[in-house]
């Protein structure tokens, strides 16, 4: 549990830093301009570097994990999505993984029967549900934030906002995605704390992003629903950042700086953390390769010759035994009448 405590403390410090910086020292330019720019740069170059590194690494062997019937005899139905044979089918499989979390959807939980004599398996889709909930809520929330970066606000953003606000309660309108985001984060955290196996394997690296995202979502919600901030000024600041003519508008309020500092930290943390799973999935050879190695040659760029035991050496060693057993040979024994040596063979 030490990992959780470390992570929690780290996030609390990350909240206090901008508060102190802005409230105590008036460092609005640092927290409003310099750090966001730096974070974006780290994010961009960090992710790029990681992608370049991964994509340069060879896939020596084609090792997809096959999740269904292979393509073989034409009257046996191939599981195209789970055992892809063509690139198109691989794309289908990747789509199902990236957008629908196909593999998580398979999840099963073994249950030991009382008496300790058997085990049964039940479908266990909670992790899939929490994960889907989190990722789509996150996606929607990020997408909604485009309103701060683009002027005029593009219509898809407005549409998403309208759908997101379907509850139609409160002023400002309640955005369901934000609430679901917090809910999903809470559920993912609860899993880690409640399930003993999960508690046992969890590291600080696992709790930290959860707490960080919770803090981001919470500060966002606070600004939207409780404290209230000057959204016009925020947009002005954001537009100035986007157009590379940064101007800090006074009077935005410290909570905003906490929010943007945490987001900055998340961005800078992203390329060096497990959050890179978002891109790693695209490089996973058990998922992104077709199971067609018998049909299409796959080249290993570092393949090298090995000195295997050659047939000639084998025959030489077992020559007499093979003769006696009547096994055909490349170098059959000379007829006994021959006087010549068999060196010419």
């Amino acid at each position, binding site marked *: 549990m030490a990992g959780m405590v470390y992570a929690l403390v780290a996030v609390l410090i990350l909240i206090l830093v901008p508060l102190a910086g802005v409230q105590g020292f008036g460092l609005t330019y640092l927290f409003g301009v310099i750090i966001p720019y730096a974070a974006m740069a780290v994010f961009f170059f960090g992710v790029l570097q990681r992608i370049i590194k991964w994509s340069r690494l060879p896939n020596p062997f084609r090792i997809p994990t*096959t999740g269904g019937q292979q393509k073989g005899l034409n009257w046996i139905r191939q599981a195209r999505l789970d055992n892809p044979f063509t690139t198109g089918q691989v794309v289908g499989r990747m789509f199902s993984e990236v957008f629908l979390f196909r593999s998580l959807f398979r999840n099963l939980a073994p249950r030991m029967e009382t008496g300790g004599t058997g085990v049964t398996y039940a479908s266990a889709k909670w992790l899939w549900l929490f994960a889907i909930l989190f990722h789509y809520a996150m996606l929607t929330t990020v997408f909604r934030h485009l309103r701060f970066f683009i002027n005029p606000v593009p219509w898809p953003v407005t549409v998403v906002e309208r759908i997101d606000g379907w509850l139609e309660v409160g002023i400002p309108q309640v955005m369901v995605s934000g609430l679901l985001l917090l809910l999903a984060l809470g559920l993912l955290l609860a899993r880690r704390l409640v399930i003993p196996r999960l508690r046992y394997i969890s590291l600080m690296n696992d709790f930290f992003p959860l707490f960080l995202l919770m803090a981001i979502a919470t500060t966002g919600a606070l600004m939207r629903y409780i404290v209230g901030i000057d959204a016009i000024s925020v947009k002005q600041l954001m537009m100035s950042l986007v157009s590379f003519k940064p101007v800090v508008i006074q009077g935005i309020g410290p909570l905003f700086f906490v929010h943007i500092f945490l987001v900055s930290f998340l961005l800078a943390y992203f390329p060096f953390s497990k959050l890179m799973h978002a891109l790693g999935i695209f490089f996973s050879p058990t998922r992104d390769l077709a199971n067609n190695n018998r049909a299409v040659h796959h080249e290993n760029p570092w393949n090298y010759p090995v000195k295997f035991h050659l047939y000639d050496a084998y025959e030489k060693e077992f020559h007499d035994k093979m003769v006696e057993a009547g096994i055909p040979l490349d170098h059959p024994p000379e007829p006994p009448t021959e006087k010549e040596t068999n060196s010419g063979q």
Partner: protein
Amino acid sequence: MASDLPEPRELSRIDLSMPRTGWMDTPAPFKEGIYCHAAHAKDIEALGMPNPRDWRVTDDDWKLPPNWREIILNGLRERLEKFRSLQIFMDTCVRCGACSDKCHFFIGSGDPKNMPVLRAELLRSVYRRNFTRAGKIMGKMVGARDLTQTVLKEWWYYFFQCTECRRCSLFCPYGIDTAEITIIARELLNLLGLNIDWIESPVAKCHHVGNHIGMEPQAMKESIEFLCDDIADITGIKIEPSFNRKGAEILFVTSSGDYYAEPGIFTCMGYLMLFHQLGLDYTWSTYAAEGGNFGLFTSHEITKLLNAKIYAEAERLGVKYILGGECGHMWRVLNQYMDTMNGPPDFLETPVSPVTGTRFDHAASTRAVHICEFTADLLMQNKLTLDPTRNDHLHVTFHDSCNVARGMGLLDEPRYIIKKACNYFYEMPEETIRERTFCCGSGAGLHAGEDMELRMRGGFARANAVRHVRDRHQVNMLACICAIDRVAFPTLMDYWVPEVGVTGVHELLANAMIMDGEKERTLDIRGENLPGRDRDEGPSEKGEGR
């Protein structure tokens, strides 16, 4: 060995609660019955592998070279650059826990380091410490730790408790494959000469003599001829297979388990009878006599080394293509590695069934066909006459061998054959078959005698599913298409599910297959009386048409 094995009732009391101490602070317990014996110097030497010396697992001193840390870390660095898989699997795990209860060894032992995620963390923690900035600076706080002898021994203990079955990989949202991690971790351990005897010795024999058991050419021929004698007793037909025959159309390769031990030999008799009935122009090879490849449990290089003989022999004999027998990891290698490692074999042709004319285009590059594909095609085109009532005394279930299930996807072909050859076929629960199948618990070279407790624990999940169909459908025969299964299951069934036998699919086929000119069968392939075919009772209605 087996005398210390706890009773099933005791072994099945599995405690899945987690220990009090964190996993980094809990050294490997080295419990007898869980680990295998160490590899011998002579075998390590025979393969030209590093650090040949005799050593014992129980000794404190494993006689490592003084620079062992450097060797491992350099080896790891090299492999991070050579395998995208390894780098991705080190970087992307989020410890979501989806894999944590998927491993048969975890289900059967409750040891948290048998959770695939922790098995990988054993390696990942060292990776973080030495190859990531955060790990270098923050250490244990971020799950990084130094490579010490304790850690190395823990690697050895747990990477030889993984059967490379890939069940975890199926459930992982990023496809992280513990088999791949285990393969590479074992490759690293082999840099220090830390293999187990049950793997290294077969590898050495396979390299030098041609098969795992070191059966010399004349002995192999005799062994198969003995099987032909048995076939003559049962069917009245004398089969004379050929060996190392140049100009044959097909080179047949299977695991040596099929021609030297029960019940594998009955499957082998099935091949022999089938090929004879078809008049197939094929040959055995005493040189490339092993389809099984324990190199896969050692290193990529050794995998290639052993596998190379198959194509070399196919070229020497001038065959058109390769037909492969019922073997699990052999087919992982043939399907996913052989063509890349030692191919493409341009001297071979796209396989075509000489009986049906079916072209196996999905094997156009490797030119290797699985015998279940070959036979399913025959049956689909009605090229064989079967009398499934000969198998009526058997209530059969089918175990999907992990390697052909998750490294190939050969799922429906064997079922098609079984359903044609048997009237009573019952599937195990769907969570335990096909791509979700459970390992026999003895794969990847772990089917030794000294690790019997591990094997029984590892096979618990599979056996439990067999028990389900035994109790519900009176299943008394477990069919499989893997030679290690056929070696491992009899013991596993005796322990957990007594009275369930083990068979290969082609044994079932041969028992049902009506051969031209055969005498009336009163015996099954095992030489046991066919129920209802005794002289007194006389045959019931059966379609001996041909």
